[in-house]
């Protein structure tokens, strides 16, 4: 599903964020991505979503090399991905419902069918009662869950989550991890970055450990 082969990523300015990464994630797998702050976790996830491109080596997602991807094909690759951002990236000019609606509008879904799906996604993350609320009025944990609802509403085959339990207390992070677990059970491929030891202890799964941009074995 996801395959890295000798990937190097250097940012403008010369900093090498990732060095010689090679690994593979199979369809339906749930994998953790661990490492200290600045280890390169976000960079690795951005390479999968083709937000960044590798300087050398190849990143192949669903059989497509992100480097040789035509710009016209990029949106269609991204529609297979559910992205949970570290900074949420919610839109504050519309309510929770419309935030979750956005991916379906982009794909051109029928309005009534979309509304059903949006409510199902909001229900899944426990925000159905807050659908009219502006994201700015939501707590940190609720914003995180809203971001998850937006990532899953389009029923992606791959879910990438960047520190989804980042600044949350234990109760919230447990809730969110249970939501992810349920996606894993229906066959979604998951890659979740975290530096939360408690989460790793509670949900045993394969882990990729990064240290200064290199994969630990």
């Amino acid at each position, binding site marked *: 599903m996801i395959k890295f082969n000798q990937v190097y990523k250097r940012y403008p300015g010369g900093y090498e964020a990732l060095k010689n990464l090679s690994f593979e994630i199979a369809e339906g797998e749930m994998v953790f991505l661990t490492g200290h702050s600045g280890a390169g976790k976000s960079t690795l996830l951005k390479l999968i979503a083709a937000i960044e491109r590798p300087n050398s080596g190849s990143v192949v997602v669903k059989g497509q090399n992100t480097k040789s991807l035509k710009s016209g094909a990029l949106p269609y690759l*991204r529609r297979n991905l559910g992205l949970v951002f570290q900074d949420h990236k919610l839109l504050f000019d519309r309510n929770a419902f419309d935030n979750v609606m956005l991916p379906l509008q982009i794909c051109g879904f029928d309005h009534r069918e979309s509304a059903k799906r949006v409510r199902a996604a909001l229900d899944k993350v426990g925000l159905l009662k807050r659908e009219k609320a502006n994201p700015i009025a939501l707590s940190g944990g609720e914003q995180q869950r809203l971001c998850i609802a937006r990532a899953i509403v389009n029923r992606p085959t791959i879910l990438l989550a960047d520190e989804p339990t980042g600044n949350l207390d234990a109760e919230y992070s447990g809730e969110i991890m249970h939501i992810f677990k349920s996606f894993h059970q229906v066959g979604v491929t998951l890659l979740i970055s975290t530096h939360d030891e408690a989460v790793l202890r509670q949900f045993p799964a394969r882990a990729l450990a990064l240290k200064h941009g290199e994969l630990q074995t």
Partner: protein
Amino acid sequence: MKNSAIQHLRVIRFTLQRLRNTPIASLLNILVIGIALSLPIGGYVLLKNVQGLAEQMAGTPQISAFLAMGTGPDEIARISKQLKDHAAVDHIEFVPRDLALKQLQLSTGLADVVGGLSQNPLPDAFIIYPIALDAQKLELLRDDLKSWPKFEHVQLDSAWAHKLEALLKFARLAVLILAAMLSFALVAITFNTIRLQILTQRDEIEVSKLIGATNGFIRRPFLYFGLIQGMLGGAAAWLIIASSLFLLNYSLAGLVQLYASSFTLKHLSLGDSLTLLGFSSYLGWLGAWLSVSQHLWQIEPK
């Protein structure tokens, strides 16, 4: 197919909503576009009216060709046939010198003077009605007739119309230059409006790209906005011209009554009005397209 039509309708509804959300700014933009367009279009309308008036007054152009004195009836018959066979001539009228004298007596009130003449001083003449009515072909025909040996004098009766035509041509060019310049202004106004919109919607554009929006999807609302704003600007220009004409006609009414004529300034025809709307919509779309092409690629998600 049906699905994409629904999407387009949704974008149009969304665009109208956006215009309504900032009523003052939208209204000012539309007015500025309307005023800019109303200058050249108003000039065009006035020209059209003057041209119509000129044609009305000039009537059908004709050429008078006077024969040399003492041309015999055989010769006149031959010339008459030659004229009728001429490719540029529609029909002719022969005015014998006796008839010309009588007409002169009747029409000018010089009956006494003319009656006192011992001899008819007028020549026989042909009045020639050409097929083509434009000035250049008329002159060509006149010059041709001048070279015929039996014609002593050939006169084109619509020389002043020709001068007016030249003047109108100049005025049309001026209107065209004005139109080109102000079209550019319209494009620039839209370009800037869309640039500001893109800046304020940076977040939405970035997120949309991240979750799989195509460039076309992101462009569409901006293009529709430019198109609709341009169209409304065109409609505003139409209304500005309509009210100006109403005022002009009102004050013209007193003037025209003196001459017992029923001359009123006419607005754009239906076809011209639709062309105006189409053109202003296109310019709005073009401004938006340029702006989007210039600014959208700068917003890449990080």
